[in-house]
């Protein structure tokens, strides 16, 4: 049985109530806006890139607990990483949230593993991945709004 606590673990609640890196970056080198029209979630991701590395990352926006916590955890996870490391981390993250309950979790995901419960709630996968899609767009320096439907 899917347990409420699997989806809303303390870490997730903590990150959604007190999101880390929740700010703008003045003079950001890259920025992208993600929007999920279905639920009205909206996130803006700011990056300061330095020689292909994510020197600083922050976000602002409004959304559900899952998308907010995911954005917050993401910023912590990719700060200091190279672009390609961040992209690979997104791949593994995507695999986890679209996987089956009970699948082994890639140890390199670290704290992001708290979002593994999302895979039991397929309709929430988009909430968890919206920040990552937005980060990807910012890394690729796409200008348009990412829209997930």
């Amino acid at each position: 049985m899917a347990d409420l606590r699997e989806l809303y673990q303390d870490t997730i609640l903590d990150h959604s109530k007190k999101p880390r890196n929740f700010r703008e970056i003045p003079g950001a080198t890259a920025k992208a806006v993600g929007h999920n029209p279905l639920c009205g979630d909206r996130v803006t991701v700011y990056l300061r890139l330095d020689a292909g590395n994510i020197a600083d990352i922050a976000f602002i926006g409004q959304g559900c607990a899952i998308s907010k916590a995911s954005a917050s955890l993401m910023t912590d996870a990719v700060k200091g990483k190279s672009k390609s490391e961040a992209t690979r981390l997104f791949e593994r993250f995507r695999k986890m949230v679209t996987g089956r309950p009970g699948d082994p979790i890639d140890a390199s995901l670290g704290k992001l593993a708290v979002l593994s419960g999302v895979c039991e709630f397929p309709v929430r996968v988009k909430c968890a991945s919206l920040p990552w899609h937005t980060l990807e767009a910012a890394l690729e320096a796409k200008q348009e709004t990412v829209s997930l439907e």
Partner: protein
Amino acid sequence: MARKDRMAKPAKMLLNVPAIQADFPILKRTVRDKRLVYLDSAATSQKPKQVIEATSDYYSRYNANVHRAIYELGEESTREYEGAREKVADFIHAKAASEIAFTKSTTESINVIAYGYGLKGKIQKGDEILGTVMEHHSNHVPWHFVKDHKGAVLKYVDVADDGTLKMEQYDDLLTRHTKIVTVTLCSNVLGTINPVKEIAKRAHEVGALCVVDAAQAAPHMPVDVQSLDADFLAFSGHKMLGPTGIGVLYGKAELLEETEPLLGGGEMIREVHLGWAKWNDVPYKFEGGTPNIAGAIGLGVAVDYLTKLGMDAVRAHEMEVTQYALEKFDRLKGVTTYGPKDVKRRAGVVSFTIEGAHPHDIASILDVEGICIRSGHHCAQPLMERFDLPATARASFYIYNDLDDVDALIAGIKRVQEVFA
């Protein structure tokens, strides 16, 4: 716990809810090991076994195309299909069954009106179409087409903070340029029941037509197209115990005559030649192609079911459940409900928000408790913008819901508040 073991509420219910619940096979199932508490009938209703059996009966006993077959089976299917049309006509008090065309949905019905009467028909550049801010997207977007292709001007009556239409503004916007007024009889977000009879009367005074979206009204309250003096009216079978994929377009006979069909093909023609065709009579000219025969028959049985309960009793029951829910909601701290407070002015649709909890999280947590509600913009983005809300949670009630379901909802909301405390 099985439903019949549970104690009945002391309150007098106007419908025999346990007997009704027994007719709905889906209510016997569990969701995530919990009793199913279905509070999303505004999106689509559940189906009683009578409707399910009627559609499967059609396929297993007399499946044949309608209006064409010379043999017995085809006569039976045509009789049942046309019988359903008559039941629907009676249900909304149309003058004749020929004023009822079957479509696939409210959405299709409104598109037929916008296209066939507006875009291809009477509407000229500069003509005004007057809608409201509380419409469902399906009563917005088809009119955008008329604006884009014909140069019609779209205007909208705003919604007051209490969820009712600003009727003084309606009077101001209504002019001799207004050709169509289009309004929902009942809002799918606020539950507001609009004074459509008055709206139609004033529209007629300036020579405009009144188009009525009855998607949320036909399932829940008596609808009388003659008393409303509606010119066109649309609703969907799936929200009123019927199958998906069947909808109704009502139009006054002379207006249906003036409306061009949307779908060309079989069924809708009298004669076809190379390069031109003569159309069939109303309402068949709107039913191009093989129709949803099982859907129409199922809808006919749904209408029988509702008629047997009595639409007055259905409405009274929902008022009682809604009143109980609003009182319970009122006592919750940090929870806001939207729409009129007076149940006489609203239907059993309750949109709400909880401080500190996003509607998606509310819906997920309730889901774990076996409670199905809606979250999001409810296909009414202009209305959400009006109230500056990215999303709301929405519970909606129907004949199979009782006060226990409301209690379950309220307990679920408290659980949400605990999680996000």
